[in-house]
């Protein structure tokens, strides 16, 4: 069968979709589309069946409240046909909420959505899809145990023509659909691969294919680069350009200034749920950052050159397996000296998490040595390791870092609650705990109404400051920070970065793990790049960005970076742990009303 036949079926059925297109949804759409089909069949790159009626989107006065919190405050936004429109803002600024409103996942309290000038009152993703809107969510909306083809057709399945009422799946045509979209946009992926076996970069492709297969004319990409290597990011940007050339409109949500300036035609900045302004890509990063945060921001971390001392943390030939028994740390050698920051760069899921867990005694070690100032740490409990002078900021703040229902004061003594002065015998001493809490709240600029407020009600940035305050209030030899600023606002990020540098300057050894390359480069004195459980190289932070990017993709060797980049497919991250797609933004009041991805 040909693609056009498939499209005819798609256009007439399934009835569920057709119903939505009726009435208020988008009257202009089906008619205009029919015109396009006339020309299909000739083939050739310009006569793609995809070439759709361009879609113009207008949001007028969108307001969305969650209780007392105004997530979106009278937002106006216009996306022209064939435009890449960046939505820039901090975590929690309301970008995702706005897009969820557009996609029908949330209902706006006020305002209207116009598509090609016609108000749209549809209220569910189903209707958004019918209106030509596709969304690639930050947490991928893919069923992990399904194949690519099954995920792509889910909700709009290919049915065998024989006995259609029984709804037998036509997997052959579903596979062809995927291949067709793959071929048209250079989005190669195996339609029969199980999604959970694919690296995140390819999973994201599947999401894009899914939207294109439904004839999306406007694509919403929600923080698409958060989980990608620099190379994968470049590929994604290329795909976005080809989509644009095909007449698609794209809303690109990000807080990364570099990418936004590289790809966007126009940039709308959102802060605290309000539109601050719309500019073009010529605006400088400093200006954009200032718009985003509301004041001038230092994008660089101020620090003096390091003065490394003796080796504090010594990791030799470390091997660790993950929960499924796969060897994810494979012969790692690292030394962190007093007074230096060793940064670990790498795409998530390349063993960084397990490495840190092994150091902290949270995960058994298969073989190797971990020692702190010559003392063996393997086999010690986490408590013993902390008492030995190690500070730890865990990767998953709300899960491992704080007890959400406990107060700020209680969370600040989680490490020393059973010691003097916070305890005497079996009893806690609330007075001491409160006094100490007030002191640290002031010192670390934790924005909380009182020390008795449950930590779970604070913003992500302030929760993180509570953790940093707790961990830095002990005398430390080693400070281990894993994703210390994930989902943290710019102000808090600046603060935490400054504290980490200050800790280093006091002579503490710092081990920093971050999937944000910028963060590693800004803070680290040496950068170890991890790939599939191995440290491929240790470089200085002024090494060329492309070089580090290639290392992150597993490409070693000194050949010209440009040539290699061109031939390095995203398969470089094949086999990386698919579980790595967990990204940021899990603080309360953040963005969408509830991202309940398991």
């Amino acid at each position, binding site marked *: 069968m040909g693609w056009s036949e498939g499209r005819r079926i798609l256009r007439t059925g399934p009835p569920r979709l057709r119903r939505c297109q009726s009435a208020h949804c988008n009257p202009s759409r089906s008619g205009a589309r029919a015109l396009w089909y006339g020309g299909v069949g000739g083939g050739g790159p310009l006569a793609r069946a995809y070439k759709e009626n361009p879609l113009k989107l207008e949001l007028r006065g969108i307001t969305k409240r969650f209780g007392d919190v105004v997530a979106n405050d009278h937002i106006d936004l216009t996306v022209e046909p064939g435009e890449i429109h960046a939505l820039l803002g901090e975590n929690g600024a309301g970008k995702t909420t706005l897009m969820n409103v557009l996609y029908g996942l949330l209902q706006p309290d006020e305002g209207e959505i116009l598509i090609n000038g016609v108000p749209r009152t549809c209220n569910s993703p189903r209707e958004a899809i019918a209106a030509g809107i596709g969304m690639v969510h930050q947490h991928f909306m893919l*069923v992990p*145990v399904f194949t690519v083809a099954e995920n792509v057709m*889910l*909700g*709009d399945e290919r049915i065998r023509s024989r006995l259609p009422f029984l709804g*037998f*799946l036509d997997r052959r045509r579903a596979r062809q659909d995927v291949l067709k979209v793959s071929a048209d946009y250079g989005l190669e992926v*195996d339609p029969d691969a199980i999604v959970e076996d694919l690296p995140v970069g390819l999973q994201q492709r599947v999401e894009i294919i899914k939207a294109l297969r439904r004839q999306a004319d406007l694509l919403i990409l929600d923080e698409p680069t958060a989980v990608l290597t620099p190379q994968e990011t470049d590929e994604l940007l290329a795909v976005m350009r080809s989509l644009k050339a095909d007449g698609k409109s794209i809303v690109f949500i990000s807080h990364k200034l570099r990418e936004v300036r590289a790809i966007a035609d126009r940039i709308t900045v959102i802060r605290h749920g309000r539109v601050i302004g719309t500019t073009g890509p010529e605006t400088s990063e400093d200006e954009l950052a200032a718009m985003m945060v509301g004041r001038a921001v230092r994008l660089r971390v101020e620090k003096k050159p390091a003065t490394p001392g003796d080796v504090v943390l010594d990791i030799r030939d470390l091997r660790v397996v993950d929960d499924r028994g796969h060897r994810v740390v494979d012969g790692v050698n690292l030394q962190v000296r007093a007074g230096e920051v060793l940064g670990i760069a790498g795409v998530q899921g390349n063993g960084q998490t397990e490495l840190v867990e092994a150091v902290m005694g949270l995960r058994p070690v298969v073989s190797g040595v971990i020692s702190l100032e010559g003392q063996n740490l393997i086999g010690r409990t986490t408590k013993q390791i902390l008492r030995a002078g190690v500070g730890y900021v865990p990767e998953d703040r709300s899960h491992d870092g704080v007890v959400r229902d406990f107060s700020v004061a209680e969370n600040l003594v989680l490490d020393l609650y059973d010691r003097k002065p916070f305890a005497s015998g079996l009893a806690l001493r609330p007075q001491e705990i409160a006094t100490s809490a007030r002191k640290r709240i002031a010192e670390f600029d934790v924005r909380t109404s009182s020390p008795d407020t449950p930590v779970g009600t604070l913003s992500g940035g302030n929760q993180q400051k509570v953790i940093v305050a707790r961990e830095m209030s002990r005398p430390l030899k080693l400070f281990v920070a894993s994703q210390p600023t994930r989902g943290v606002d710019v102000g808090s990020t600046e603060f935490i970065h400054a504290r980490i540098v200050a800790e280093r300057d006091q002579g503490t050894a710092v081990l920093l793990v971050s999937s944000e390359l910028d963060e590693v480069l800004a803070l680290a004195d040496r950068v170890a790049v991890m790939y599939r459980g191995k440290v491929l190289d240790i470089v200085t932070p002024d090494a060329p960005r492309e070089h580090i990017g290639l290392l992150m993709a*597993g490409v070693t060797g000194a050949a010209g970076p440009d040539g290699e980049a061109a031939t390095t497919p995203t*398969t470089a991250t094949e086999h990386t742990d698919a579980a790595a797609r967990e990204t940021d933004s899990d603080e309360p009041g953040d963005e969408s009303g509830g991202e309940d991805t398991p």
Partner: protein
Amino acid sequence: MTTENHGTSPVGRTEGAHTALQTRPSPQPAIEEVAESTTARGFWTRSHRAGTLFAVLGIAAAVGFGALAPSDQDARFRLSESADGFTIPIPAAAGAIAFGVLCAVAGVLLFTGVTRRFFGWSVGVALTSLLLSFLCWQVAGETMAVVTVAQTTLLLSLPLILGSLSGVLCERAGVINIAIEGQFLAGACAGALVGTLASNLWVGLAASALAGLFIAWLLAIFAIRYLVDQVVLGVVLNVFALGLTGFLFSRLMQPEQQTYNNPGTFKEVSIPLLSDIPFLGPVLFEASMFLYIALALVVIIQIGLFHTRWGLRVRAVGEHPTAADTVGIRVNRVRYLNVLYGGLVAGIGGAFFTLGRVGPFQENMTDGKGFIALAALIFGRWSPTGALAAALLFGFAEQLQIYLSAIGSEIPSEILAMAPYLATLLAVAGLIGKVRAPAADGQPYVNR
């Protein structure tokens, strides 16, 4: 054991990843090299675990059962219905050793990975030979009427099959159904009561299905709309069903049995021609109508789940409801419907206790079968065919226990009664392959 097409085994994963690799234009050598080194997995893969287990068990059986079995007696297995019909005599000691060795060989083949593509079959061969080895020892000097054993096994398995199918329907959509026991009881009671009142077994059967549906409706309302913890809810519904049917029984059905509790039973249905086939005929084609219903449902649900739009959506809702929602699937509607379907199936399973076997209802006559159906569901890895196999295994174990105590075996029957559930525990612990529930099983979905 399962024909599920989304293997979650380590083997399947590796293959998937490799095919994905091949779709890309020639990756760089450097990359492949690293890939090689990290795909190396731990020693205890599924094949290695299962292989070791069966090799050890097989050798133990060959040595142990072989030594215990008398060498001068035959174990006779009679394949025909009549007492003087076709019988296979197997020398007890030699047979015990031979089948033990066969099990060990299957284990070794599993271990070496030769039979990797036929994992389920290999495990089946190993288990069967282990069992035969055991039987050679036990049946020595006796005759086992295989037809009778098979018929009784099916009868004992029937409620388990229907119950675990109910579980498959609910849990694949993400709702835990602990209330199978309650649905059984309600179905059994309603079938007897209404069947008697209407003097019509079919009306009774319909009432059974509706009674199961009623319990399922309560489950659906509280689990899906009111977000009650599904395990607690299921247990409560079981106690509720026990109380309700107990009340009806002691106040109504027991005092006036003739008026309220005498429905009679469905006749066995004999299929012409097919029932004349030796051995298979009397077992499969001269059986309770419920057997045909159950087997048909296994086939329908298996095909439905894995090859139709309905099944794709159900599984999507059970694995990742948010993903299903964002492509326009009404998550909670799918869940409601599936829980209700499950209730119908379990209600019919309940009817089997009364209308299918004995007729009158007795208090708590399901005797925990609903929970065992739950075990069959898990042992069968949430797939209809797997559940069927597990239910047959459990049914057979129960029948074996009855048979062995009848021939005066020295093995305490309680030990035998425990065996299949011990096997379930081992299976759930992941000893043989990974058992993975639908990812969103038991998690309510809240519409945003």
